[in-house]
């Protein structure tokens, strides 16, 4: 079995040589190439359908009101999603504030300091963390706050904690990658000049890796900004604006979309329109983050020779 990976088996080679490019082999080749290309097209259909449907169904729900009004006391298709947009921004921002320092410092630990058992344990647990189902992260945040604040608790910051659990491993992984490609000769040159290690890291390594780090963080934000399940069990559902993550329930776009679909008001279609409008807003945020991340990388990356 392993030999087939290293070289072609002798009988394969001789069969290839002996059998000339007959009609059968040529047609098998054509059929397989067509199948492979068809599989790719098939895989792209959902992508184009998604983009098309989000645009088609999301635009009718967009209005000035959608961005400026909350949904307090709104009936019959009135009201907007400003509270949900604000909530998404706040919850994500707090999650970022928690995750980025921990994630980047942990990556620095792994790449610059780590040795022995702690390093191995951290690598292992980061692997475990990447596999945590998002709903389980939500349950953890709930269990954590319930023990201190009592049952039924719902806070914006609980959602941020849940999202941090999902975001930290993404930040670590990407930061580790970019720190790894900072060449050692830069570090050695700094040491040769008598620069202490911490200054080498903060003044040489981090600035060299800066574009990559920012890109990684933006991609990580894009990955968590649309999370629904962990927020459904931690931040609760509310119709009015709340800008204080430490006090009371906080709405967000993903849960808003889910709720408008799940419990539509009297005017069903108006609620569905809002759900799709929220989806469109969400995907716009995700795409802007992704594109901005690429632009930042292209614009600010350090050329390493």
């Amino acid at each position, binding site marked *: 079995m392993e030999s087939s990976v290293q070289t072609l088996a002798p009988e394969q*080679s001789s069969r290839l040589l002996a059998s000339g490019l007959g009609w059968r082999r040529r047609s098998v080749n054509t059929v397989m190439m067509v199948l492979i290309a068809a599989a790719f097209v098939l895989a792209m259909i959902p992508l184009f359908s998604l983009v098309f449907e989000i645009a088609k169904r999301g635009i009718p729900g967009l209005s000035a009101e959608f961005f400026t009004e909350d949904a307090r006391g709104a009936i019959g298709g009135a009201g907007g999603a400003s509270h949900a947009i604000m909530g998404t921004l706040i919850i994500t921002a707090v999650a970022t504030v928690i995750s980025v320092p921990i994630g980047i410092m942990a990556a620095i630990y792994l790449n610059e300091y780590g040795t022995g058992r702690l390093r191995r344990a951290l690598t292992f647990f980061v692997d475990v963390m990447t596999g945590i*189902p998002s709903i389980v992260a939500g349950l953890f945040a709930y269990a954590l706050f319930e023990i201190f604040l009592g049952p039924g608790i719902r806070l914006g910051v609980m959602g941020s904690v849940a999202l941090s659990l999902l975001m930290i491993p993404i930040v670590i992984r990407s930061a580790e990658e970019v720190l790894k490609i900072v060449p050692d000769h830069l570090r050695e040159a700094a040491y040769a000049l008598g620069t202490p290690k911490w200054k080498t890291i903060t003044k040489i390594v981090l600035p060299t890796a800066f574009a990559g780090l920012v890109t990684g963080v933006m991609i990580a934000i894009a990955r968590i900004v649309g999370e629904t399940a962990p927020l459904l069990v931690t931040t609760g559902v509310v119709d009015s604006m709340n800008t204080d993550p430490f006090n009371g329930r906080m709405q967000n776009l993903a849960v808003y979309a889910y709720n408008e679909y799940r419990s539509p008001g009297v005017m069903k279609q108006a609620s569905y329109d809002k759900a799709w409008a929220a989806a469109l807003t969400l995907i716009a945020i995700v795409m802007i983050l992704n594109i901005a991340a690429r632009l930042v990388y292209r614009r600010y990356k350090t050329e390493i020779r």
Partner: protein
Amino acid sequence: MASVDTTTNAGQLLAAASGGRRRLGDRVFSRTAVLAAVTILVLLTGVAIFLLSEGFPALTASASELPEGKSFVDYVAPLAFGTVLAAALAALVAVPLAVAVALFITHVAPPRIALTLGYLVDLLAAIPSIIYGLWGIFVLGPAAVPVMKWLEEKLGFIPIFDGPASVTGRTMLVAGLVLAVMILPIVSAVAREAFAQTPRRLQEGAQALGATRWEMIRMTVLPFGRSSVISGAMLGLGRALGETMAVTIILSVSGAVTFNLISQANPSTIAANIALNFPESSGLAINALIATGLVLFAITMVTNMGARMIIARQNQE
């Protein structure tokens, strides 16, 4: 001589003076790094402890106190079945497709556009799961209704297409297909990376011997990437097991334990069950849901560990 002495002295003095600060700065910085590492370990231990302590009451409670009046094992078993069924269905559809997509990008499509095609596939991974859910219920579900009707009529003798076919499209088949689309980019990314690393000398050797492109792929690229494909498939499976919102929105659940993929009566999944019931639950029901979350965590962790082990072994070779 004297001047040399003074410089040496000055150097020593400088070193002593700044060395103290240096060591302090280094100590503070390295301890911060270690602290971040330890924080993560504490956080994960916290996850385990808090979930266990909140889930435990449900494990010891009597059947009558729990939701649906069942013992915990009876409560979680159908959910675990649904979870595995949906994820397995997704992997079954996604893996061959992902392998083909990876082959297309690495070995079939013109190299000039390969990078762009890769971005397109990765875009699928950037779409939030709530949107997949809405797409599944409003677009794919209704589109699948006539297909499922046809499956029931023509292939109804196979138990998985037994029917009666759903008229809303909220079936296990649709949920599985949506999950398949969601995990496709993960599986294909892993496969792509491995396929692209197939040694050139093998590919060129095969072609020099007169192999067609497909024969070259079958004899060199596929054997080379096999273990990566397996580990990628398991990573995708792990993702599908824990996926919540798409299933929550799409699947119409009855608690039935069945392999019938096209009917209205489906087993729920652990994650979807939590999302559906958690917001309105209180007391022991919450503990029971958290305990099911632990079961889900265990299932996904075993799957992911399996994938990591395959990758690690492969890296050693």
